């Protein structure tokens, strides 16, 4: 039943992974202004969220030892989620835009998405309430946080574009957009890696105390950071300062969870090369270290002077949203998918190609955009003619497109790999039916 559930949401989500239109550069028929929200929302609600929720339906019952209540709702919910997301993504290029960055979806999509998240939240809370083991594993803490916060945040997203005016609209929008990344993508990503990293490398988590420090500091600091998107705007200075201070304090949860992830790998590095899920998870963690260092420092007023409005910010968002969270979700997917299908991953070699293409792509993109953003920012500070500063960005933009193509090819290979895993009926499975019910190691974990 959970298998059925995971399948459609992931399947459609993967098609969402191909929605990276702005890597294609200057497509003339469709303008950037119309396609950018498709890319941003496609990644957030399509690629990441559908994968995450699908993988949650896998891990929650396993962590709690009981099934999710009303399992028959799962598949319809997945269909609602994916159809609504697809419909909203299609509507965006037709000019349906309400002006709320990262919340551009029309109401016909936002309200069903809100209901879906709310129902899933209730399902998971009930499951966790009925759990057999009293201790609450840290992944579940984050899961509760992610779902409860996001249920509340989506209400904000529904009301915001139509109710609040002027600089208050900007202040609330800053909160909303950073709740999407900070209270949805971040704890959701932590759920995945806290579950899939220990289980895929078969090592207990390095330090439970650290993981709690990470959770509490995230819960304490992350809700406040939103206004750092609009420093030096007419929004009250003290509110901007609170946002800056909490942004810097976010180094605490980031570094504690990263210590935990790398600590979990201790003693297992020898198997790392052949353990595909762990490779994705650890690569995402490295990206997270860089992406979040950027994020915290660019909240500082002095750093924001050159970096704001430039590709430095775009580099940060790609390193964290794609390089970390989507990569973690893919790592989890590579772990889950073969087990759901009851067979081995179709090709480890192909999976490794995906890994390296994606790694090379996101690293190049991150470095290139950071360098380009800094250059443009300092050019602006030096008073360079506007169009000259655009001209000097061209090589960086070309590099970014190449990096994006590399990532796209990597993900395409990954999807082909997973589809072949699901569709092919390998002779081995027939020959050795004892592999069926037993958990089958994925990604060549046992090779």
């Amino acid at each position, binding site marked *: 039943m959970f298998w059925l559930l995971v399948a459609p949401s992931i399947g459609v989500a993967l098609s969402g992974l191909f929605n990276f239109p702005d890597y294609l550069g*200057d497509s*003339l028929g469709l*303008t*950037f*202004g*119309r396609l*950018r*929200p498709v890319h941003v929302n496609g990644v957030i609600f399509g690629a990441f969220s559908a994968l995450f929720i699908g993988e949650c339906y896998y891990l929650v019952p396993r962590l709690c030892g009981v099934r999710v209540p009303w399992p028959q709702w799962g598949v319809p919910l997945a269909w609602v989620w994916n159809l609504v997301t697809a419909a909203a993504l299609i509507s965006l290029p037709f*000019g349906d*835009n309400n*002006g*709320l*960055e990262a919340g551009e979806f029309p109401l016909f999509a936002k309200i069903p998405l809100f209901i879906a998240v709310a129902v899933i939240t209730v399902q998971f809370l009930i499951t966790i309430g009925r759990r057999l083991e009293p201790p*609450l594993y840290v992944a579940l*803490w984050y899961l509760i946080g992610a779902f*409860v916060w996001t249920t*509340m945040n989506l209400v*904000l997203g529904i009301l*915001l574009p*139509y109710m*609040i*005016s*002027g*600089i*208050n*609209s*900007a*202040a*609330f*929008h*800053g*909160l909303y957009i950073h*709740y999407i990344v900070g*209270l949805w993508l971040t704890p959701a990503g932590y759920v995945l890696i806290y579950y899939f990293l220990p289980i895929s490398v078969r090592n207990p988590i390095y330090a439970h105390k650290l993981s709690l420090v990470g959770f*509490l500091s995230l819960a304490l600091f992350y*809700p*406040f950071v*939103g206004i750092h*998107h*609009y420093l*030096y*705007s*007419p*929004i*009250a200075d003290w*509110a901007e300062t*609170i*946002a800056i201070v909490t942004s810097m304090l976010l180094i605490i949860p980031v570094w504690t969870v990263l210590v935990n992830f790398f600590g979990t790998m201790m003693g297992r590095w020898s198997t790392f090369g052949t353990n595909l899920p762990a490779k994705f998870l650890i690569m995402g963690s490295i990206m997270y270290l860089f992406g979040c260092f950027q994020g915290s420092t660019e909240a500082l007023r002095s750093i924001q*002077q*050159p970096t*704001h*409005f*430039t590709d430095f*910010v775009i580099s940060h968002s790609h390193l964290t949203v794609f390089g970390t969270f989507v990569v973690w979700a893919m790592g989890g997917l590579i772990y889950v998918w073969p087990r759901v299908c009851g067979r081995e991953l179709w090709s480890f070699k192909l999976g490794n190609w995906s890994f390296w293409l994606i790694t090379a792509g996101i690293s190049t993109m991150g470095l290139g955009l950071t360098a380009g953003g800094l250059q443009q920012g300092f050019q*602006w*500070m030096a*008073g360079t003619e*506007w*169009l000259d500063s*655009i001209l000097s960005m061209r090589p960086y933009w070309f590099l970014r497109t190449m990096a994006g193509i590399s990532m796209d090819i990597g993900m395409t290979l990954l999807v082909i790999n997973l589809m072949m895993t699901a569709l092919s009926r390998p002779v081995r499975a027939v020959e050795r039916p004892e592999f069926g019910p037993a958990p089958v190691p994925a990604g060549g974990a046992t090779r």
Partner: protein
Amino acid sequence: MSARFVTLVAGVLFFFLALGTQGFLPFFEPSARTNKVTAVVRTDLGQLKWMLTRATNYTPLEQRGRDVYLREGCWYCHSQFVRPVTGETRRWGPVTESGEFAFDIPHLFGTRRIGPDLMRVGLKYGDEWHYAHFWNPRMLSPDSVMAPYRGLFERPSQTVSIVDDASGNRTLEKTPVTEKLFDFSSKEQISLTPNADGLLFVPMAAHGKTPIILT
């Protein structure tokens, strides 16, 4: 267990605490609810004077423009606030004040400048510049990376041909489209020059006059 419960509840409470300090409290700052703006006026003696005035709501036409700006996602590439740092006042103009945004629902501050800031661009270019620029930005600034917005134009379904009029001049064929733009019986004439692609730019000044085509 209860300690855990408390921390979980606290986690949720921080969400509301943050909404309070970062969302609602700034709202109570007097500056957040004002519509006062500083305007510069030129006196009869030609002096520039700064005066405090009140922002007014958008006119229907302005609101329509804002809707298009929002719908087309202009705000992904163009910001609408000038910061008091990094020489932005020299590049764009005076720093923005909160009163200027009083009637913006939602705000369109923007977060990325792929193109220039548009807060102070209002009187910089004429309508004709904008027509040409929206048709093809590269006609006016060859290095621009902006998308062409030809979809915003009404385009005649058929091309208009050039014909000879009775007095030996070359003029445009009379079609519903050209008759809406020009008055062929007018005594006032306007000389127009199509470009090499056959594209004819009709300036505002040509409306209601007889077109004469120079090639």
